[in-house]
């Protein structure tokens, strides 16, 4: 699959965070999640939305993200990350 455009990736990550699939981005750090984390979140979102769980931000996934929907998250967001000593 072709790599998603930067703006799609950015809005997709924001979408995943808003609806509980990714930890909300840290505005101070301002960096994208690791590819594995993103793929896992995308697969979870795709399963919930009835799409094929590819883990890739493809066209059907983007289209579903643009579908009007309820504001509430689909699942509770993950708790705060544990700090290593």
């Amino acid at each position: 699959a072709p790599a998603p455009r930067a703006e799609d990736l950015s809005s997709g990550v924001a979408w995943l965070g808003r609806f509980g699939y990714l930890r909300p981005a840290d505005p101070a750090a301002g960096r994208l999640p690791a590819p594995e984390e993103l793929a896992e979140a995308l697969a979870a979102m795709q399963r919930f939305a009835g799409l094929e769980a590819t883990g890739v931000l493809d066209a059907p996934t983007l289209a579903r993200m643009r579908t009007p929907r309820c504001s509430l998250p689909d699942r509770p967001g993950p708790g705060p990350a544990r700090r290593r000593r």
Partner: protein
Amino acid sequence: QAPAPATWSKRNLSWRVRTFPRDSPLGRDTVRALMHYALKVWGDITPLNFHEVAGSSADIQIDFSAAEHNDPFPFDGPGGTVAHAFLPGEHPAAGDAHFDAEEAWAFRAADAHGVDLFSVAVHEFGHAIGLSHVATTQSVMQPYYQGPVGDPLHYGLPYADRVRAWQLYGVRESVSPTAQPDTREPGGPRLLPAPPDRRPSAPPGRDVPHRCSAHFDAVAQIRGEAFFFKGRYFWRLTRDRHLVSPQPAQMHRFWRGLPAQLDGVDAVYERATDHKIVFFRGDRYWVFKDTHVEEGFPRPVSDFGLPPGGVDAALSWARGDKTYFFKDQLFWRFDELTRSMDPGHPAPGPAWGGVPRTLDAAMRWSDGAAYFFRGADYWKVPDSEPAAVPGYPQPTARDWLACRDPQAGPGGAGTEGEAGAHAPAGRHDRSRAEDGFQVCACSS
């Protein structure tokens, strides 16, 4: 460990549309009606009762808001997120539902023309009673908007949603968990009627009493209108004493929360102090706020200081906030302010001359007079008078229930003034109209 699901501990929930969408083709009444029907979808299958209120203390506050509106879910204009609601809980916004005021809200429009408000409201009120999102495409709790779900008057929840609601609240007494939803599509576009709690919602059965021959169980003035109760039915008269319909309404469908097996009431009155409505049957009584029973009822009539056996009639006497109770040949006077019986009661016979010693029903009417009912007759006692007006009793059916010849009963063809009762709405029987005596029935 999964947290316990958030649910309401009470079963009677109030709601209110606090703010409406601006510049919407949907009028306020339509929005309120759609909210009513969307809540009814959940109330029909669970023991939850929803009633609309005017005050600011509603359990479910409904708002149409734009952009940031003081919660963690700002709206984003047309498309994107369209609505959200908060699960039950201790949070001040618990149960509240917010709709994006900038959406093109629609009702009975083609899918491409706007967002169907009823469909979204059904989903949001699912949250308001404690349901979260699910992945099942057959569920109304799927997070994505999938177009109109169907006609509000015929819509039934998918089985998956009914099961989840039953897991939270149990099954409503009148619902069979194995029944399949009615998926019939409506035959064509129809106007959305007013919420049905202002009218009888189902045609009565074959066992209905006839108003022209009935001896009424209870009569009450409620919100300025007259209610005549007989068995499981009642008739309603407007403030100017016009019969709302010649056909009786089913008591349980209007007064929500009465036990299904209750086959009649002994007495009913609207309490002067708080305008709640009190129903008596045998040793028990129920208090209604508007048309829904309050939590904790029925209670024993001993709360009033009444003996077991109940009452025959109740009469709310506005002056002094007194309520009179009648049973056999005794009467009691109850002080609504001190919530106690006045000394010296029970006393023998009614307190007014010319009124029979035993009563079926009693009511105070807007003309200030008290009306006493027994058998087919009634007596009128004007305000401040010690006795009934000479010339009484008079026939109740003729003077209150729009019957020309009360003795003829239901079989007396041509003896009643109910032209139009069996005709299509809006049409009148000309021959009756020429008599200058007719009753119009609204059937839509």
